[in-house]
């Protein structure tokens, strides 16, 4: 899935820490075997709380979130649901690692920024920001541009919408063959 970058849109804020993938996508919906149309289940057990801070109309492509966002279960459904919910970039002090990778595979840019920077961005709930993945920069009106780090591999994949499987097959087919030959020669029990 490729997303047009730079991405400009209003910010949604969910600053709670340790929002796990069970909260993002409760387990009972894991029985679905499709990855499309899952946005309606995002935050199912939270969305009707009076204090749930995100609008439910897919109008906030940039999410500013609390530390350790997406921790817990590896369920990629959490990312598919957020994507379907309109989210294309998540800015947080830290992420669950599997969730982070799942984002990069599905057209959502995970952006790690220091706690105080995230807190400052959170004050801009509803305002418009721009995520420029080409330049690795977050910009907005009256905001000093904020640089962020993302691995070159993830950045390229997100920018080009590359399929990781196709990429590995195309670039490393021979090396994989060679590795398997070496392994066969060495370890009989494999």
């Amino acid at each position, binding site marked *: 899935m490729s997303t047009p970058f730079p991405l400009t849109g209003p910010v949604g804020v969910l600053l709670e820490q340790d929002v796990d993938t069970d909260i993002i996508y409760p387990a009972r919906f894991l029985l679905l075997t499709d990855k499309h149309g899952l946005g309606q289940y995002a935050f199912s057990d939270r969305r009707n709380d009076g204090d749930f801070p995100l609008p439910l109309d897919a109008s906030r492509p940039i999410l500013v979130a609390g530390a350790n966002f997406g921790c817990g279960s*590896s369920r990629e459904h959490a990312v598919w649901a957020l994507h379907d919910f309109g989210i294309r970039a998540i800015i947080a002090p830290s992420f669950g690692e599997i969730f982070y990778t799942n984002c990069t595979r599905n057209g959502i840019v995970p952006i790690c920024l220091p706690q105080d920077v995230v807190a400052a961005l959170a004050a801009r709930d509803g305002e418009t920001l721009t995520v420029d993945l080409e330049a690795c920069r977050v910009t907005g009106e009256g905001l000093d541009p904020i640089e962020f780090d993302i691995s070159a591999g993830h950045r390229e994949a997100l920018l080009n919408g590359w399929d990781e499987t196709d990429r590995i097959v195309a670039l490393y087919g021979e090396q994989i063959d060679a590795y398997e030959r070496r392994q066969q020669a060495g370890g009989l029990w494999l």
Partner: protein
Amino acid sequence: MGRTLYEKLWDAHVVAEDGDNTLIYIDRHLLHEVSTPQSFEILRQGGHGVRRPERQLAVADHSVPTQDRAQGIADPQARDQIALLERNCAEFGIEYLALDSADQGIVHVVGPEQGFTLPGLTIVCGDSHTSTHGAFGALAFGIGASECGTVMATQCLSQSKAKTMRVTFEGRLAAGVSAKDMALAFINAVGAAGAVGHAVEFAGEAVSALSMEGRMTLCNMVIEAGSRTGLIAPDATTFAYVEGRERAPQGADFGKACAYWRTLASDADAVFDREIVIDASAIAPFITYGTRPDQSVPVDGRIPASGEADDKALRYMGVSAEQPMDALAIDHVFIGSCTNGRIEDLRAAASIAHGRKVAEGVRALVVPGSGRVKQQAEAEGLDRIFVDAGFEWREPGCSLCVAMNNDRLPAGARCASTSNRNFEGRQGAGARTHLMSPAMAAAAAITGRITDIRSMAR
């Protein structure tokens, strides 16, 4: 400079440098019904086959019913999902362990007990508790469904190398204290995100003294501290467990394999990015009070004072700051999961249940981790002990660890659970989960309250 166990496993699996990442070879892939439907779709859409079908092993566990299986699966969604796994495996030539076979069980119980899990391998599964297999000195980590597709097509993943953390448990555990308590104490010490980005190696006297079952419990829960990978160096205990299992190397090959496996331990001069030392002899039975696995206290402790405690979590859990954990009333008990659904766990629970009765108003489930664990338990008469005491004895599966099948708790229920996550809604929307060891959960079933196992052990 010497290398750590993690670095040795990593180096042995490098296929190519891939920009700022590394392409590593994946030796084994475990599949279950929930995380793979979309992975197989990726294969179809990309026109890929499965590169090495014999390196994959599939089993249904998350959504399977744990009773009345002869009648088939009542929930049509679960039935379709499990049937889809079976069809996908048939189409792509992957071995599938059928639901009616004694080999069926939770992926992380089945892999080790069949010798599919071995020291020195890289092992992945679309499940965050894949770290369990690190107990054998294998580099094992959970991945997403898209990555599962990539692994089936290429046997490879592009990864960045983790930092290393060694957690040394010095001294011996006291009576009534188990690997689960070590895991909860570790998570409490570093925090729910404390090990993000690190491969965690467990070492020290108390770790060496653990059985393979205990080591799996410990490695299983590193993800609750944010790490994808837990590791323990393979030793005589490991080799004794692996020897003779049907998918493990046999005869002369086994000897050769052991010689290699012995070289994997971290070198004496290896340097870790972080070192943590925990006094094992001072660990008490641990129990969680909140909605994150690091929100825990020793059973004789109190919930932290207001301000320090997470008020939202306390509200959800229906507990208050500074409340003692001991004697808190529970109404449900779950003994099982990939954390504590192995034979040793059932023995520990049965030793408490023996000759006693489940308290009135308490519903207690024992769900073995696999068909083989179930058979072994029945051969030892553990099922009788549980049933006589008033526990329900079920068929193997994830059950109340994830509440995807028909085992679900009602809102407001309070459960003493041997599983690994006390997240909001994990055992059913609005249900409250307290994580603890199997012996502690059995004790809670008997008294109807959180109970210090050390006051009940015989």
